[in-house]
């Protein structure tokens, strides 16, 4: 029997709750690579600027720090909503298992706050600290943000590979060990894969902004450095990510066979499994139509030989199968496809830079590099879909069903609609401010830290009044 379609599944809150969670997570995740990886790029530009007395590099670092302040604030708001939703939408998860896996969220909260303070110190410090003192005080930021990412990934990895508790006969949670829950089996590969993804997304996106300027004829040192610093780091990390991603897929093959079967759309268990690119999965008949099939490749990727036995979707009880195999499979293929393109781009960059020590001149390269930022983000979102939708119908793998964790409150469709509208507004606002920032910079307006979010308080933001009250107000002080 085929799995029940989601819109017929009980309870009625499940579909809107999942959609709302997906929307808010996919929105929030846009800001994560910026918060995690941008500080490192800023510090590299800062170091370069101080080391070589390079004003252009320092200007880049300073402007990036202002953009970081803004995206950080928006991320704070959307992150607050996520912590609400953990209870509003999934009380069965937090109410019952919060005692097991809640701690990483507390760690992340502190890491986030510490990062906010350090970012503020860094933005304040441009004009208030000795240059090198300023740099050294900024140095912890990438590590603090990495600690924050580690804890959130730990919580998500725990949902994939739950550990640190035992279930009693009546389902009561006993023998809790928060340490074992944090250091669960999926943490190493999920964390490595995500942190690299964050650096790739931030690096390619940052570079693509200056590539666009370069394509429009702004071929100065400012744009050249703006491309080279982030693009070089992202290009170096791309092949590493490919290997780490492969390791993660093999680990999922061993830890979560159902997710692996959905990712690779393996219908029937057996050896010599073909790798199917895209295609349409039909859950009623458990078959795939269309797509490009490469014989034996899937078995070879999973176990190093075509004789590797890969369990298919048929080996999983119908009501335990991922509820939407097509989404998982297409997201996975999209992610891997984009990663392959990025490797080619990185290779092109490496050869060109090795020969001429400059940004490649080819317009085709520049067009590809301009698109790489968006593509990397598509890959990040796709990867997130693979891990989340691929785990369904479980919210905690093999322990708690998503349908048992969802709230019984009504009105989720209303809240989902409101979320869509408000996040659209938030996105428009954020893009508008970032564009205005870049417009100001292009017009050569001085980069004033007072204009930045988390910057120093402007000294005189309000014009003095020309009323007689001035003197009396002064006297009152």
């Amino acid at each position, binding site marked *: 029997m085929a799995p029940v379609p989601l819109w017929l599944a009980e309870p009625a809150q499940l579909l809107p709750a999942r959609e709302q969670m997906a929307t808010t997570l996919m929105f929030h995740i846009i800001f994560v690579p910026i918060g995690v990886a941008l500080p490192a790029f800023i510090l590299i530009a800062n170091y370069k600027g101080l080391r070589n007395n390079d004003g252009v590099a320092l200007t880049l670092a300073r402007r990036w720090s202002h953009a970081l302040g803004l995206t950080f604030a928006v991320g704070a*708001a959307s992150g607050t909503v996520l912590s*609400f939703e953990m*209870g509003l939408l999934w*009380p069965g998860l937090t109410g019952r298992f919060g005692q097991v896996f809640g701690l990483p969220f507390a760690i992340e909260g502190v890491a*986030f706050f510490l990062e906010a303070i350090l970012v503020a110190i860094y933005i304040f410090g441009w004009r208030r600290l000795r240059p090198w003192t300023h740099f050294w005080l900024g140095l912890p930021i990438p590590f603090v943000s990495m600690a924050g990412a580690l804890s959130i990934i730990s919580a998500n990895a725990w949902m994939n590979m739950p550990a640190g508790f035992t279930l009693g006969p009546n389902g009561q949670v006993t023998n*809790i060990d928060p340490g074992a829950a944090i250091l669960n089996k999926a943490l190493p590969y999920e964390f490595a894969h995500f942190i690299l993804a964050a650096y790739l997304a931030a690096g390619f996106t940052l570079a693509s902004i200056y590539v666009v300027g370069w394509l429009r004829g702004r071929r100065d040192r400012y744009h050249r450095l703006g491309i080279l610093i982030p693009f070089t780091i992202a290009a170096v990390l791309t092949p590493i990510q490919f290997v780490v991603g492969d390791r993660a897929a093999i680990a999922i093959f061993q830890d979560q066979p159902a997710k692996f079967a959905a990712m690779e759309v393996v219908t029937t268990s057996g050896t010599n499994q073909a790798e199917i690119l895209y295609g349409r999965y039909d859950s009623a008949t458990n078959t795939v139509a269309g797509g490009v099939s490469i014989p034996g490749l899937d078995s070879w990727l999973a176990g190093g030989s075509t004789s590797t036995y890969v369990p298919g979707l048929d080996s999983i009880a119908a009501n335990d199968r991922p509820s939407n195999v097509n989404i998982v499979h297409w997201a996975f293929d999209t992610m891997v496809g984009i990663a392959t393109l990025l490797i080619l781009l990185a290779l092109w960059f490496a050869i060109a830079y090795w020969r001429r020590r400059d940004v490649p001149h080819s317009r085709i390269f520049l067009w590809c590099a301009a698109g790489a930022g968006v593509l990397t983000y598509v890959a990040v979102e796709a990867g997130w879909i693979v891990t989340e939708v691929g785990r369904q119908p479980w919210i905690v793998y093999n322990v708690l069903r998503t349908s048992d964790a969802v709230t019984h409150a009504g009105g989720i469709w209303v809240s989902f609609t409101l*979320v869509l509208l408000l996040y659209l507004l938030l996105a428009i606002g954020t893009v508008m401010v970032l564009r205005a920032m870049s417009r100001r910079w292009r017009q050569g307006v001085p980069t004033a830290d007072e204009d930045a979010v988390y910057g120093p308080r402007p000294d005189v933001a*309000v014009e*003095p009044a020309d009323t007689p009250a001035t003197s009396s107000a002064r006297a009152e002080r």
Partner: protein
Amino acid sequence: MTLATITAAVMMLGITLYACTGIADYGAGFWDLTAGGREPGRRPRQLIDAAITPVWEANHVWLIFTLVLCWTAFGPAFASIMTTLFIPLAAAAFGIVLRAASFAMSKDAARARARHVAGWLFGVGSIVTPFCFGLVVGAIITGRVPVGNAAGNEVSSWWNVTSIVVGLLVVGLGAFVAAVYLIAEANKRGIAELPRYFRRRAIAAGAAALVLGVIALVTLLAEQRQMFDRVVSRSWLLIVLGLVALAAVFWLAVRGTVRGLRLVAGVGVAALVWAWAVAQYPYLLPFSLTIKAGAAPSVTLGWILGWFVVSLLLVVPALILLFVLDQRADLGEDPTTSRPTGDFDGVASPIPRSRRADLGTGG
């Protein structure tokens, strides 16, 4: 004292910090909304913008802290509150997003009209969120949140007289604290008129909060006698402290003194928060779930409290450094190298303070 009680106290500390900082941010939005037409409201709005931008949305960290602590240490209470009170809590979250979105848009909206609409939405979000938090507190203290997944009435649990009055009280407290903070901000900048402008508003909001507080006690007496008795018999000292703080703010404001004003207002709000905590102890959900019954096992609580100590050691020095930098003068900038110039002991600044305004408003 048990680990569970200490954890509950730490959670109340998070709520207290949020009440003194985040709720004040909402209050600033309230004054932004009520500042009047475009021209008369321009200067107070500029001051509010200048005061909020440096801490934009950062104060939500205390709210996140409280939520996370609640679901880790007191999962059953968290799940019950979040489901029965789904509507006001979802609305509170939407208010936060609305504020963030409209604040971002008002920052760089090209046209005055767009900026005006964004500012209006910012004000609306700033009233909705604290009002909803008040509804939630009202529902909890009147014992309308039973244990379970949406076990209580999803509407009448928070749409009742006491909850609405407490909601208005929280809005009023936010407006009060914000006005007090803005007196100090205006005064620090030496802006004419504005200290007096916000002084009037602080007194009005304080008086409104006092009236609402009295009404809240009366409705509590009518709707939930048991909780009323607890407030009167156990928390009277804290309520007196809150009243003394309010009187002190009035006295300082009338005299035109700024020193100590913010501290006294913060103490007053903190006293009210703890009056609630003391009255409700030992219940997480009056009168069905106690701290002891709703708490996670001691191993989890031990980890949380250990992490709390570590985080204090991390965050406090960083906050002190930020405060020192906030007090330090700008050192100016060499326009060709864009490196800072001048004496780094913070004594002299090559660019006079007045020039910095030119740089600052250049955008």
